[in-house]
């Protein structure tokens, strides 16, 4: 890229930034004071019933767990951060009031007010720098243009959003019907997507600017390389920070606070949620179910090892088998759950038909608390058998034949050869399979969700399913968080154990 191209590119970015500043300004300018405090995103979010409206007026009661019922006429209340409007929301048939919406002024509006002049200044700076071409200025111009683009587009999305909200809500506090329409149209979808795309584009521009600056400037290689490498890592790092690292801290925080959807204060409660769990027989039941469920792993391993021993010889068509055994893993789990539910059907299932043919009594596999969990274990074992067999087969084939021949010459019989040679050699593989298998058994959700819904009588209730129910059906996020902490610790311990063994012995597979 030549210097001229570069200048043109910087100029384009700066112009784009300036244009977004202009549009954002226009969008924000026409808003009247009351309308400006309503924001579509917050509106939709409140509709979902997960974020409390600040300063929820006293006298409103929360009805069922999904939504809040209010009077039919819209209310205008003064909240901490400006006006607040609440209005009833009807369901799609216009029949029942299923919730309320609340709209409040947010920090965004103020942030946009700051971002606008800043973006304008940066854009102007970038253009000036381009107009006066110096070697030193080209990198600075790129950075300024990037900053202007980010701020400008942030202001733009905010402005557009506020405008949309204002137009949808106007006249403020007036007509309930228009509020309904707004809420049910879910204005947040398109806008949020737009915002995300714009943000991603800006991030790309910024990274590109930094990289490109770094590439051309006469800096030490190390600085250049560090900048470049961080640019390469930035996308995944941002994601990990937001969706893995922050959630860990947040999880711990929630688990020791009261997280009531409708209360604005979230007091610290210490270990109260954990104590609640300790006193909850269902939690213990789920934990025990999970441990029993995990037993399918060693059982399947034994079968897989047996199969591998039989198959460890030159056989034709083994490659096909190697593909076929993975079908249960790649197949959609819901589909697998459905077909097994059908196979295990009490009256018309194939399995019971087979039992009947052998004059054995029919079993109500999924309906009987005594057999429901074993039935799920059977399905899981079916899903894992092939994979474990392939891993064992690879392990067997890695054992040098000379070892077995030596043992044979020493007069060891088949069982001794297995016990003294094969089994010790397969130990790392077995440990790996056992630990990863148990870890993954605790992730199982789909089978329970589709086949038994935790029943009958909580016989198949496992931790993940309880967390799901507690949070998304009973709306007790704090208790679910406490449960997640327990699950997390359990799995961390298992993972640590697995990593220790991996470090200790060369893991196969």
């Amino acid at each position, binding site marked *: *890229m030549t210097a001229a191209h570069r200048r043109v590119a910087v100029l384009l970015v700066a112009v784009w930034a300036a244009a977004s500043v202009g549009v954002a300004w226009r969008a924000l300018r026409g808003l009247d004071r009351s309308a400006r405090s309503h924001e579509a995103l917050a509106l939709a979010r409140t509709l979902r019933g997960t974020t409390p409206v600040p300063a929820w007026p006293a006298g409103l009661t929360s009805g069922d767990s999904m939504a809040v019922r209010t009077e039919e006429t819209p209310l205008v209340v003064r909240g901490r951060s400006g006006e607040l409007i609440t209005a009833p929301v009807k369901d799609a048939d216009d029949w029942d009031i299923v919730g309320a919406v609340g709209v409040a002024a947010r920090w965004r509006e103020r942030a946009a007010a700051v971002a606008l002049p800043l973006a304008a200044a940066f854009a102007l700076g970038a253009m000036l720098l381009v107009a006066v071409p110096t070697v030193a200025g080209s990198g600075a111009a790129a950075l300024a243009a990037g900053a202007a683009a980010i701020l400008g587009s942030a202001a733009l999305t905010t402005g557009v959003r506020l405008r949309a909200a204002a137009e949808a809500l106007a006249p403020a506090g007036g007509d309930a019907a228009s509020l309904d329409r707004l809420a049910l149209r879910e204005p947040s979808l398109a806008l949020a997507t737009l915002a995300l795309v714009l943000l991603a584009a800006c991030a790309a521009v910024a990274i590109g600017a930094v990289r490109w600056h770094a*590439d*051309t400037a*006469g*800096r*030490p*290689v*190390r600085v*250049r390389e560090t900048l470049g490498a961080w640019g390469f890592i930035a996308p995944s790092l941002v994601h990990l920070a937001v969706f893995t690292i922050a959630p860990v801290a947040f999880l711990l925080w929630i688990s020791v606070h009261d997280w009531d959807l409708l209360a604005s204060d979230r007091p610290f409660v210490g270990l109260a949620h954990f104590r609640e769990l300790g006193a909850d027989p269902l939690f213990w039941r789920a934990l025990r179910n999970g441990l029993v469920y995990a037993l399918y792993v060693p059982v399947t391993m034994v079968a897989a090892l047996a199969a591998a021993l039989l198959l460890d010889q030159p056989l034709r068509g083994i490659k096909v088998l190697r593909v076929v055994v993975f079908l249960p893993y790649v197949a959609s789990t819901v589909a697998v759950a459905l077909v097994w539910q059908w196979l295990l059907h009490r009256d018309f299932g194939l399995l019971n038909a087979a039992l009947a043919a052998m004059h054995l009594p029919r079993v109500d596999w999924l309906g009987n608390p005594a057999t429901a969990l074993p039935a799920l274990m059977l399905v899981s074992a079916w899903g894992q058998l092939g994979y474990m067999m392939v891993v064992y087969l690879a392990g067997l084939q890695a054992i040098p034949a000379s070892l077995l021949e030596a043992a044979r010459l020493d007069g060891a019989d088949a069982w001794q050869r297995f016990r003294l040679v094969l089994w010790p050699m397969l130990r790392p593989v077995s440990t790996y399979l056992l630990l990863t298998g148990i870890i993954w058994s605790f992730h199982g959700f789909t089978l329970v969700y589709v086949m038994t819904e935790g029943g009958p009588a909580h016989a198949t209730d496992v931790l993940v399913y309880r967390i799901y129910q507690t949070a998304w059906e009973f709306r007790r996020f704090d208790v679910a968080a406490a449960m997640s902490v327990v699950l997390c610790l359990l799995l961390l311990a298992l993972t640590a154990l697995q990593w220790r063994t991996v470090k200790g012995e060369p893991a196969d597979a």
Partner: protein
Amino acid sequence: MAALSLSRLVKHFAGGVIGVDDVTLTVGDGAFTALVGPSGCGKTTILRCVAGLEEPTSGEVRIGGRDVTWLPPRDRDVAMVFQNYALYPHLTVAENIGFPLKVRKTAPVEAARRVRQAAELLEIGALLDRKPAQLSGGQRQRAALARALVREPALFLFDEPLSNLDAQVRAQTRAELVALHRRLGATMLYVTHDQVEAMTMAQSVAVMAGGRVLQEGPPMALYREPASLAVARFIGSPSINTVAGRTTGTRFEGALACDARVGACTAAVLAVRPEHLVLGPAIDASRASVVLVEPLGPESLVRLRLRSGEDLVARVPGEASCRMGDEVGVRVAPGAGLCFRAGDGARLA
């Protein structure tokens, strides 16, 4: 075209490994300089510093007078041919050669023309649609060469480009590279650990050891007047004969003796090229027994063992007159003995 100059170049790697230790070297505009030295002496490291693939710890790299020490590789206008050719396996030969033009956004028509031209120059015009995996070693080498010269860089770097070829192709390519150099008039820095390659191809040879340049000069100057024992040992094949002893100021005394006006009385090493050993009757000469005679056609190598136990090689024209087991006298041709100080190997005379 441009001259290359390195001044006080130092490169330390993590963990205290010294790659290059204070190297100052100049390759004149249009010159062909070879860097030779034993494995691990820092030849590749110097090339990588010149190319910008490695950041020097200190020192300066100038190309055509411009300080490029901190410039990224692509701004240095340098091309390099790697030992394993480093052709892009997913691209055809044409695309490989055209790659430098493509990333520099040369117009496609112009790029195609130059690719064809480079390919024809190296006689691989018929292979343009193949992938590197479908080429022989020599063809790959040519493709790599074509990729280097298609963009007409200021400086060519070669990192042992012939070491993966068999002997015959290597000899042929050697000659072609020299011809190419003459034709392009380009500045070239050529790394090899094969001193024959360096001697036959380069106008100037720099001998390296332990990260330092021991001596630089035209091949024959290095051969005749090595500045140190290490250089004397490295240059020449078969390598130079050495014998320990003392200088007396006018003579060297040891298992071999010869005139050596060095003015110092000290422990020393005498080095004599194989062709400078004169075999004759055992009168007034050191006695040696013939261990092996290797006839090479135009000349013969005679391997000898002195009474005192040192092994020597003598090169005699035509067929040797002695046979295995003979006792012969060995003398140093007048003025041909090189004396080096025993401790550091510095040249005495």
